[in-house]
C-alpha cells in the first residue's frame, strides 16, 4: 500500500447466527479502524456500500434460509477475500445438529404451528455454497486470531490456521486433565483449539464449541465416554452438538449396534 492510497476496505455481515462475531468485531473496532475502511457493517453503522467491491468480507452465521444464500452470493461476488467467522459460518453450529435430528420444515411446523412458510432450509456452513478463503472458527472467535487473520490478509497472505485439538493447548497451559482426573466428559481431544483450552482451565469439560479438530478421533472419544457410563444417545448428542459434519456423524453411527440407532 502506498502513502495516500485509500485504506483497504472490510465488510462485516451476519447471516443466521447469534451476532457473536459481529460483537467481537465491533469490540475490536479501535484496533481495526487505523488500518481499514469499514465499508459495510449494518450492525454498527447506517451508511453501507454493499454494491461495491471490498477487500475482506467477514461473514458470520450459517445459511438457514434462501435469503441468507442470496446475500452470501452477493457478498462473495464483491469480496476479494471471504472470511467465514465463527462456528456457524464454518460448521453450522447448534442449528446444524438440530436439522440432523429433525428436518427444518418439521421443526418449523412444530415451532410456528401450521402457519408454515416455505422459506426454511437446513442449516449449512458457508463453504457448502461458495468458496471460502479463510475459515476462522470459534464460538465466539478469538480476538487475537481475528486481528492476526486481518493483518495477514492485508499483506496478501492467506493465514495458516491450525485445528489441532484443545488438548494441545491444555497441555501447554499445564492444566490438570479434567477428563482423566475429574472424570468429566471433556471433548478436548476432538475439538479444534483456538480458545486456549478455556473450559479445562476453569476446571470444566470442553463441550466442543470450536467445532471438530483435524482428524478427530470420534470413535475413540465415543468409546471413552461410554466407558465413563454415558449411554450412546447422550454420547451422540454431546459429540455432535456444535456443528460436526454429517460424514463424522454417520461414521460414528456405524459403530453403534443397530438396535439403538433409531432412538438417536
Amino acid at each position, binding site marked *: 500500500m502506498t502513502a495516500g492510497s485509500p485504506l483497504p476496505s472490510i465488510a462485516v455481515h451476519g447471516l443466521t447466527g*447469534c*451476532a457473536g462475531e459481529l460483537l467481537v468485531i465491533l469490540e475490536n473496532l479501535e484496533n481495526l479502524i487505523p488500518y481499514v475502511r469499514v465499508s459495510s*457493517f449494518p450492525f454498527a453503522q447506517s451508511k453501507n456500500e454493499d454494491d461495491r467491491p471490498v477487500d475482506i468480507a467477514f461473514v458470520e452465521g450459517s445459511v438457514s*434460509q434462501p435469503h441468507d444464500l442470496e446475500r452470501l452470493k452477493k457478498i462473495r461476488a464483491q469480496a476479494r477475500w471471504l472470511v467465514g467467522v465463527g462456528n456457524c459460518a464454518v460448521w453450522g453450529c447448534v442449528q446444524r445438529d438440530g436439522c440432523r435430528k429433525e428436518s427444518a420444515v418439521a421443526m418449523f411446523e412444530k415451532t410456528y*404451528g401450521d402457519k408454515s412458510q416455505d422459506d426454511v432450509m437446513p442449516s449449512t456452513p458457508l463453504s457448502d455454497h461458495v468458496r471460502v478463503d479463510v475459515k476462522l472458527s470459534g464460538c*465466539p472467535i478469538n480476538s487475537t486470531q481475528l486481528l492476526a487473520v486481518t493483518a495477514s490478509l492485508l499483506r496478501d497472505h492467506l493465514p495458516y490456521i491450525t485445528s489441532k485439538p484443545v488438548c494441545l493447548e491444555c497441555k501447554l497451559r499445564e492444566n490438570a486433565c479434567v477428563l482423566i482426573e475429574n472424570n468429566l466428559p471433556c471433548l478436548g481431544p476432538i475439538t479444534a483449539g483456538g480458545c486456549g483450552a*478455556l473450559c479445562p482451565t476453569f476446571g470444566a469439560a470442553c463441550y466442543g464449541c470450536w467445532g471438530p479438530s483435524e482428524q478427530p478421533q470420534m470413535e475413540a472419544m465415543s468409546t471413552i465416554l461410554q466407558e465413563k457410563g454415558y449411554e450412546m444417545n447422550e454420547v451422540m448428542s454431546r459429540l455432535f452438538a456444535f456443528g460436526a459434519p454429517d460424514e463424522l456423524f454417520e461414521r460414528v453411527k456405524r459403530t453403534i449396534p443397530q438396535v439403538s440407532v433409531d432412538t438417536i
Partner: protein
Amino acid sequence: MTEEKRRKKIEIPEICRVEGHSAVHIEIVGDRVENVQLDVFEGMRFFERLIIGHQQDEIPHITSRVCAICSTGHVLAAIRAVEKIAGFAPSPATSLMRELMHLGMIIESNSTHIYALALPDFLGFEDVHQFASQHTEEFKAWTDLRNLGCLIQTILGGRPFHPVNLHVGGFSRFPSIEDFQKIETDLRSKYALAIRTCEVLMKFSPPVRRTSEPVFFALVPENDHYGYFGDQIRSNHGFQARVEEYKTYLKEETVPYSHAKRSSVEGKPIMVGSMARLTMFSDRLSSNAKSIFDSSALAKGDHNTIWNNLAQGIEIVEAFDRCLAIIETLIQTKAEWDPFDKRQHSRAIVPPVQGAACGTVECPRGTLYHYYELDEKGFVVAADMITPSAQNTYRIERDIHEVVSQTINEEYDEEREKTLTRNLETLVRAYDPCNTCATHMVSVKYTS
C-alpha cells in the same frame, strides 16, 4: 397531498442485529394507517426443538447461543429453570456471583446500545469512522464502559459472552479476591462516566411521541433491592402471577408476515425492558440512580419510548452501585466461599429430577422465559423460550401506528419523508430490539 390513495412501505433491510433481519411495512389507505407489520425475516434456528434430548448440564451452553449480547441472560434463565426442577438452591456466594455476572452483561449491553447504536441518531453520524474520529469522547465512553462489562463477564464467566464458567450447580471455578478487587477498581474509576452517560441522554428530547400509555411487565425482583431475577411477574396495572403461569397470561402467536412470534396480554401489546422495570421498581434503586431517575421525565410519568435509552443509562448507574455492594459482601464473606481448595467446592452436583419449570430473568431488553420439561435422567423432553423482543414486537407496531397517524394529514415532501423515516428508526431502536433488530437504515417508499 393528492386525493389518490397512498401506499407507504417502510423497510428495514440490512439489520444484522443479533437474530437477523426485519422490515417494517406500513400501509396507509386514504387518511388512515391501515396496517403496521414488523416483519422479522431472520433465519430460524429452532432452539426449542434442537435442545430436546440434551442433558441438563448441556442446556445453558447451548441456549447461550440464542444471542451473544444477552448470552449471560440465556445461560442464567436456563440454569434457574433446571435448578428449580431439581429443587436445588445455590449457595449465597454463587447467587451473588451470578448476579454480578448478570450486571456485567447489563453494563456491556446497555452501553453498547446507548453509544454505538442509539447515539448516532442524536449526534448525527453515519459510520464507525465518524464515530471514532469525530466523537472521540463518546467513543471512549463506550469502550470504557463496554470493556468494564466485558471484564466482569470474563472474570466470572471466562469470556465476554457465551460464558464457560457458569453451570447448573454453580461455578466451575470461583474468581479470586484479587479478581474482585480488579473489578472494584475499574468500577470506581469509571463511576463518573456512568453518571455522565445519563446526563447526556437526558438532554436529547424525543423526536416523536406515541399517544397511548403502554402496559409494562417486569419480574418482581426476588430480593429487596433493584434486581433482574425473580419468579413473579407484575404489570403496572396491578396484575401479578407466578411465571409458571405464563401460558395463561401471555399469548404467543405466529403472524403470517414474520418469523418472530408476537406476544400479547388480553389482546393488547405490552412493553418490557428498562423502562418497564423502572416504572414499577424505581423505589428500589440505589440512591444515585434514584436521584437521576427523580430528576428525569420518567419520574413525571412521561413514558415516551425514546426515554428507554435513558432508562438503560440509569440501570448502568444502578449496576455500578450494586456491583460494588456485591463485591463488598463477597470480600467480607470470603471465608464461606473461598476454601483452600476452590475446585472442590465451587460447583455442586445437581441430581436430575423429573419435572418442569420456568426459569426467568430480566435481560437488558426485558423478561426472558425459559421453560423446560426434563425426564428422570435430566434429558430435555420439551422446551419453550419467550424472548423480550418477541414481547415488544406488538408494542413497536402500535408505536409506529400512533406516530405515523399523527403525521397523516401533513404534506409529504421528500424532506418530511426522510425525517419521518429517521424518526421511526430512532423509535424502533429505542426498544433495543434484539431479534427484531435495531436498524440503521429505514426507507419509506411512496407509491400512489
